[in-house]
């Protein structure tokens, strides 16, 4: 055990400290997180307040009042709860006569908005009810304020058009009442937010990418030791099997570390990001804990299955260039579910989907997707995992025999027949 421990420690420490790992793991989700949270943070920084000059050429004071009232209700939420996404709006009406050149008037405000990021102006054009072309000008015109303003103007104009059609306020409310579609599962639980197939797909891609990446890391590691001829020194100190397992476990732990960091980021997002998304009308997906457990388990199992095969490829070749070709069959097996998942997604409960998702090489991706989409019966999920464990044991047993011989062989890549001989060597 001690010697495996020494190898695990080396594999883990050298990789976790590498720039690639830090960039790939820590930075990329942080960047993602920052991209998602930044608008909210910016809003919070500028106090979430907007002072808007409304350059009104519509000649319709009631329209302005209507928009203002709608935005005031948004501001009330802001006063209530200062959070990302909530904003307070102060509107000032600047009446522009119908014959004035609105662009010229607008120009005089450009300096102000260029200097102050919390000031903006809004142009309400002539005959806006028939031909609505409102324009919004601000230093950061792409921020959260726009959505709020757009919704307010759109709703107000719709209401006023209907009012022109001689509809009473009550009638307008009645006719424009939005329709909300609720989705339920057979247990009668309502399911809100991001559709489950999207979550399933995200999880499938994550497992696919990580098992592929880490499998290739293992292969490179084996080739490095072989190519630099360290391996002969190593196996005069440690059994080849222990060396291989140490490498598999060490690199696997690097992967788990990456998963852990990602899960923490996801938690951070759900804590800080939910309210912001809510204000945008998007609900952050609710992912049950059981899914996360399956997610991690399927990663671990998938990693061991594929990484062991990649270790075999590494042991068979003498250089990275050789490996390009030799890894094809293994990579095919890893990539195949990517060609099949569409079928499973379209019909996750069909016999074909069930069978495919039970095949050990496809289970980590396809079963994970089915878990997210259709709650497959427990026996299927556990069965797929057991099938994988049995396959992993068989693959490790076989690969260990090839690895033991292969790491000391240089030159031509072995044929299938030669591999058979290697397996039978004492």
């Amino acid at each position, binding site marked *: 055990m001690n010697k495996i421990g020494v190898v695990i420690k*080396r594999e883990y420490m050298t990789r976790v400290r590498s720039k690639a790992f830090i960039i790939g793991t820590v930075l990329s989700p942080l960047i993602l997180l920052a991209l998602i949270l930044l608008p909210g943070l910016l809003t919070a920084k500028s106090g979430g307040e907007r002072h808007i000059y409304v350059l009104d050429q519509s000649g319709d004071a009631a329209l302005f009042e209507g928009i203002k009232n709608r935005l005031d209700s948004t501001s009330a939420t802001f006063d209530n709860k200062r959070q990302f996404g909530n904003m307070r709006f102060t509107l000032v009406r600047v009446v522009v006569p119908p014959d004035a050149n609105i662009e010229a008037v607008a120009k005089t405000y450009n300096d102000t908005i260029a200097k102050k990021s919390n000031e903006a102006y809004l142009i309400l054009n002539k005959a806006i009810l028939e031909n609505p072309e409102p324009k919004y000008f601000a230093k950061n015109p792409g921020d959260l304020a726009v959505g709020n303003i757009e919704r307010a103007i759109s709703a107000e104009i719709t209401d006023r058009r209907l009012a022109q059609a001689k509809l009473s306020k009550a009638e307008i409310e009645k006719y424009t009442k939005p329709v909300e579609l609720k989705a339920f599962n057979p247990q009668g639980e309502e399911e809100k937010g991001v559709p489950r197939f999207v979550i399933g797909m995200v999880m499938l891609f994550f497992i696919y990418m990580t098992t592929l990446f880490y499998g290739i890391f293992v292969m490179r590691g084996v080739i*490095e030791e072989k190519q630099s*001829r*360290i391996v*002969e*020194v190593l196996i005069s100190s440690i*059994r080849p099997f222990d060396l291989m397992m140490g490498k598999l476990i060490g690199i696997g732990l690097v992967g788990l570390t990456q998963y852990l960091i990602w899960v923490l980021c996801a938690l951070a997002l759900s804590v800080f990001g939910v309210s912001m998304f809510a204000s945008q009308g998007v609900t952050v997906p609710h992912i049950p804990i059981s899914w996360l457990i399956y997610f991690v388990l399927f990663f671990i199992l998938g990693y061991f299955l594929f990484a062991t095969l990649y270790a075999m490829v590494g042991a068979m070749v003498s250089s990275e260039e050789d490996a390009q070709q030799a890894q094809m069959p293994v990579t095919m097996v890893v990539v195949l579910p990517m060609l099949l998942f569409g079928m499973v997604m379209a019909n996750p409960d069909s016999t074909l989907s069930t069978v495919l998702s039970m095949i050990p090489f496809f289970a980590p991706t396809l079963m994970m997707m089915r878990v997210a989409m259709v709650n497959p019966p427990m026996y299927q999920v556990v069965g797929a995992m057991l099938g994988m464990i049995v396959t992993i044991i068989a693959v490790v047993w076989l690969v260990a025999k090839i690895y033991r011989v292969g790491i000391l062989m240089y030159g031509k890549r072995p044929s299938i027949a030669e591999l058979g001989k290697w397996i039978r060597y004492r």
Partner: protein
Amino acid sequence: MNVVELRNVTKRFDEFIAVHDLSFTVKQGTIFGFLGPNGAGKTTSIRMLVNITAPDEGDIKVLGEPVTPQIQQRIGYLPEERGLYKKMKVVEQLVFFANLKGVPAKEAERRANHWLARLELADWKNKTPVEMSKGMQQKVQLIATILHEPDFLILDEPFSGLDPVSADLLKNVILDLKQRGKTVIFSTHQMEQVEQMCDDICLINRSRKVLGGSLKEVKRSFGRNTVILDFEGDDGFLTADLVKRQKRFANYTEILLQDAADAQEILRRAVALGVRVNRFELVEPSLNDIFIESVKKTNGEQ
């Protein structure tokens, strides 16, 4: 006490016999030269000694026991094909290799620092091998081989690629280890090194043992068939019926006699030709000649 005992060891790879019926012993506290041309089966034999592969037939005992992982801990092995992790700091690699041999990290680091200083690499401990010359990497590899203070060392071409200063440094380390009772198997193609350092030798060719025993006895058994000659004048008297091979040096010529030739006959012919002979000495053959002769002879027989 014998540190290594090989008895009738045979190793096959499919039809190819890599090592055939090989036997030899290595006594404790000696330096043993394990010699042979490329492809003779040296590496395969050494791999069996360190338990990388197992023999098909025969017995191997190292330090009195069949080779087990426990015995492996007490062996230091510097293979001919060797390397270091390219992007790992020197001191970290040394600690890693020593850890694998069961030395705790702290102790390993202390020893690593000691040896790096002794081999004039102290400034390089936090560098990676990519930044170092080949010779430096070689020294680091030697340190990795001896850091766990093995009782028995196998050094395969330890001097290749070293400049004379480093080679001398390394030679002193090896002789020092011998002084402290360690046993060394030393494999090289540089026969002068063997003559200077080895007590016993074993020469193998085409999977079989050709020669073996103490260096002195081996040389004696070849008899005094070599003449060191320093002469002035025509060399026409050195004819093929008497001389098997000759090597010219700046101040003398080394002549290997034909098997049946009489050394006195050379002298007689030289005098008859009026050549001035300044030095005429009958000596034992060099190990280099013994090596070449033996290998040629066995190649011819088969």
